[in-house]
């Protein structure tokens, strides 16, 4: 087992290291699907250069990293100089190790939860129960899905700072599953500070802390309501977030960065193409509807938290994953780095794969879009034989594929739960074979 994981690490890192020596990273860094204005390395270099020249990088509209990230990268680059790719290799290794730990924690958590819930399960569903041996294999799949994933490799090679955002989100996953409230909220606050949308992950974190206490019978005597956990989580989160803003304010000596980062994320002034749905929609939007649709699109990215939290309150980790997925699809500047974290965590729900209805179509859509987007980009901007609609179409298909996958996962989860509760035998009262439908 461990050998395969090691092989995955060695092969993945070796591949990355070898590719860094070629001209491939330069091309990848210029791809809009990987480098958005928020994560582009070219812009980071510009920001660092401006800081060294004593020009505030937030006085213009090119640089959108946070002051802490700027400070950190500046320091790291002073140490690493032209070996900057080592930072990205290290970050990717760290992500791999975190994924490994998360997979192990997840197996334990699922078994614990299964043991607690088993009285409610149908006796006929014993074949569906998760087994220790199969769960132990998860770590291989998760690590392989990260180390050998072309999206993760591309993001690492393109030196996209999205890799650090992913690292923070995974740290939040890790500490949440460890039930370390303080560190978890710190990581959530840091992730939110970097890319705003992880804000919604506070809800599953709070739900998890509540469930964890129930599962571990910490508070048998006083069955505290989940409200307490929500208040603690949000309180700690706000505290950390404000601390981070205060430190940034102190570092930058002005609050310009707030509008340059959060204003930039929320009002979407940069309409450069990416794999999301914002750019062409707001390019073509009528001026008097712009504000209205900005609200609609931003609310759309966050609103699913509420219904999903109600529905998935017993499965906070799954909720956390689904919310990461949805914000990754509907954020204003999505990139392949969001896709890479989604795909790396996907094998955790291996037990749902049997219930997926569109997996073949979704796989085909992912492959087609990934291959076609650079081609259509070339036809539009270099060859001049296509126009913006071609590229828009491909990003639309990509978003649709992601939506198909996430809704399919949600459906599969419901079906799995249903089968666990009611068993695989679906004989109706009149003896007919029943069909499971949403009603």
């Amino acid at each position, binding site marked *: 087992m461990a050998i395969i994981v090691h092989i995955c690490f060695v092969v993945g890192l070796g591949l990355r290291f070898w590719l860094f020596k070629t001209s491939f990273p330069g091309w990848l860094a*210029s791809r809009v699907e990987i480098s958005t204005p928020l994560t582009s390395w*070219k812009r980071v*270099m*510009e920001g660092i*250069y*401006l800081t060294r*020249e004593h*020009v505030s990088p937030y*006085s*213009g*509209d*090119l640089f959108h990293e946070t002051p802490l990230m700027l400070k950190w990268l500046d320091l790291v680059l002073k140490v690493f100089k032209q070996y900057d790719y080592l930072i990205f290799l290290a970050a990717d290794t760290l992500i791999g190790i975190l994924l490994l730990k998360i997979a192990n924690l997840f197996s334990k958590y699922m078994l614990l939860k299964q043991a607690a819930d088993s009285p409610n399960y149908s006796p006929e569903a014993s074949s569906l129960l998760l087994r220790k041996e199969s769960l132990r294999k998860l770590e291989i799949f998760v690590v392989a899905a990260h180390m050998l994933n072309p999206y993760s490799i591309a993001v690492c090679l393109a030196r996209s700072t999205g890799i650090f955002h992913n690292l923070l989100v995974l740290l939040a996953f890790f500490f949440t599953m460890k039930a370390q409230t303080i560190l978890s909220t710190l990581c959530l606050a840091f992730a939110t500070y970097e890319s705003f949308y992880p804000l919604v992950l506070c809800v599953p974190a709070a739900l998890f802390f509540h469930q964890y206490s129930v599962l571990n019978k910490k508070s048998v005597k006083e069955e505290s309501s989940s409200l307490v956990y929500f208040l603690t989580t949000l309180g700690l989160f706000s505290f950390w977030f404000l601390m981070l803003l205060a430190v940034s304010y102190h570092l930058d000596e002005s609050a310009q960065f707030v509008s340059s980062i959060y204003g930039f994320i929320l009002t979407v002034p*940069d*309409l*450069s*193409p990416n794999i999301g*749905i914002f*750019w*062409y*929609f*707001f*390019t*073509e*939007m*009528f001026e008097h509807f712009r504000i209205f649709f900005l609200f609609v*699109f931003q609310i*759309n990215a966050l609103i699913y938290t509420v*219904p*999903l939290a109600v*529905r998935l309150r017993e499965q906070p980790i799954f909720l956390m994953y689904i919310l990461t997925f*949805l914000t990754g*699809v*509907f954020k204003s500047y999505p990139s392949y780095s969001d896709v890479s974290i989604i795909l790396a965590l996907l094998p955790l729900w291996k037990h749902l794969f049997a219930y997926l209805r569109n997996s073949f179509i979704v796989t085909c859509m992912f492959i087609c879009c990934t291959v076609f987007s650079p081609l259509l980009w070339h036809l539009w*901007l*270099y060859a001049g034989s296509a*126009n*913006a*609609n071609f590229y*828009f179409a491909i990003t*639309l298909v990509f978003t*649709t594929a992601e*939506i198909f996958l*996430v*809704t399919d996962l*949600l*459906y599969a989860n*419901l*079906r799995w739960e249903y089968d666990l509760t*009611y068993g695989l035998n*679906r004989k*109706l009262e*009149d003896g*007919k*074979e*029943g*069909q*499971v*439908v*949403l*009603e």
Partner: protein
Amino acid sequence: MDTSRAFFLFLVCFGFGFQTSKAADDRFSEELFIKPLPSGHIYFHFQFTTRWDVDIRSKDEFNQYRLFPKSLGDIVSTYDVQELHLSLTQGIWRHDKWGYPIHDAPPGAELWVWFLPSVSSVKQSWSELVNALSGLFCASLNFMDAKSTVNPNWSFRPHGLQGEGFAKDVKLLRYSALPREVVCTENLTPWKKLLPCDSKVGLASLFNAMKLYDTAYHSLSVHLRPICQDESCSKPSIELTQSLAVVFDSTLKNNGYQNWSLRKLFGRSLRNQCPLADLSNIYVDMTCTQSTDYRCQLMPQPDQILNFTQKDEQFSYGQYSVGKHTKDGNFLSIGIQYNQQPKYGPIKPPPVYAHRYITGYGLENGGITCYLYNKLPQKVKVIYLESLPWFMRVYFNTVKIVSNGVVIKPVAINYVQGKDRVQPYTLEVIVELPPNSVSSLSFEFDRAFLKWTEYPPDANHGFYINSAVLSVSLPVATNYTTPGQASSVLIDSFVEETGQKQFIVRIHTESLLLSLPTPDFSMPYNVICLACTVMAIAFGSIHNLTTRRLVARDPDLKTGIIHKIKTYLLKLHPKRGLKRE
């Protein structure tokens, strides 16, 4: 009766006294400078100078106008202007072939203004000023808003008086240019109306729009500055210089000969001078009369020949007084006849000039490279200014100056970042060019994607990008003809100059045409519908999955709308239903 007569007399006297005192404090002069260029073109520079002995700082003095145009005076006094330099140009001045013009101007419109320190808000005064000037000159100067206005540090120093009560702080300066501006008769007409004699008499009567706009280069300009009233400089006065530069290609219609005359080029001859002008002169460059093989002859002979040397550079100008030649109702049509066709060969370029290009391909990113030529055997310090629109996202860390493969470190850099839809990029570099060298200044940029409403009509034509401005102080006078800081009229600068004088030159590079990626302009409804559909797929699915529950049901059980309608109809007609069964 007596008292009323006395009062009348008093009025008359007062009026006369006032008239005479006023007559002394403003003067007008008209001059024309003609220079045949080595490329076969001929350069005409008309200069009309009005001097008015008022203090630009005191608004109360702007009430009695005689020669000075009231429309401009009102604008200047209302918006606390200290210096104003406006040019409207069609075509590009080719420095490497034509040398330096008297006033250099970029293609399109250019305006730079120093405001008085007494101005309450530079930002507001500027925006009101450009709107007022826009109306006065029928040009789209109102587009010189915050998005295209910069505040350079070193490139534009005040030309006129400085000192107590005048601007020192560079915050009072604004510079803007509109390279897309098209200049035509509609700008010439209001410009002519500022002249005391309009274009009815005097040198301005040569302005025949049909001929003026059929030329290789054409530039109108207005320069206003405070100057000293006299040698002692105890009082200030205002100098308004209106100039019109035009370059004809006379070889086209002359069988390859460079021969020209005023009548041929402008379609009319001079009949008189402006009676209000103190000075009405024409100067013709006579370098060709000394040439051995390519000899020319001036017709008629000039009244006087001005020979002088400036820093080892020989100048020879023939001077005509228009009033003297047209005294008895005669016509004056100056011309030059050549004995042979011009011999085109390599032209000796001016000491410092520049060429600028857009580099790269595709519509994603690109670069700008400017070649700076220094033909002098000594180092020359130049100030380079770029003002670029916000949609060219400049990467400051790519700014590089290279000469002969060696990277040159600039003496100083002033860089102001652009902000989307708010503020342009400013890049001002002071660099020392090595002797006899070609240095390249280059940087990279990303092309921004604009909203569909931000593109001009014919979006695929591209966007015009401002000329770069190169300011340099030359130690030699090669190709140089510009009135000095101290002189108002051209003739004052045609004198011997041997001291350590520096010759200040400001040149503009080519303006550029930048293509930006365009969206499909016909698609807004489709895009809105498609993007919203994708969102609806997600919303609908998640809504379904979170609000409904899974149940096992008989697959044959029909629950569709059609089934419901059927059962409803069957209920209405129970008999039919029975029959069928």
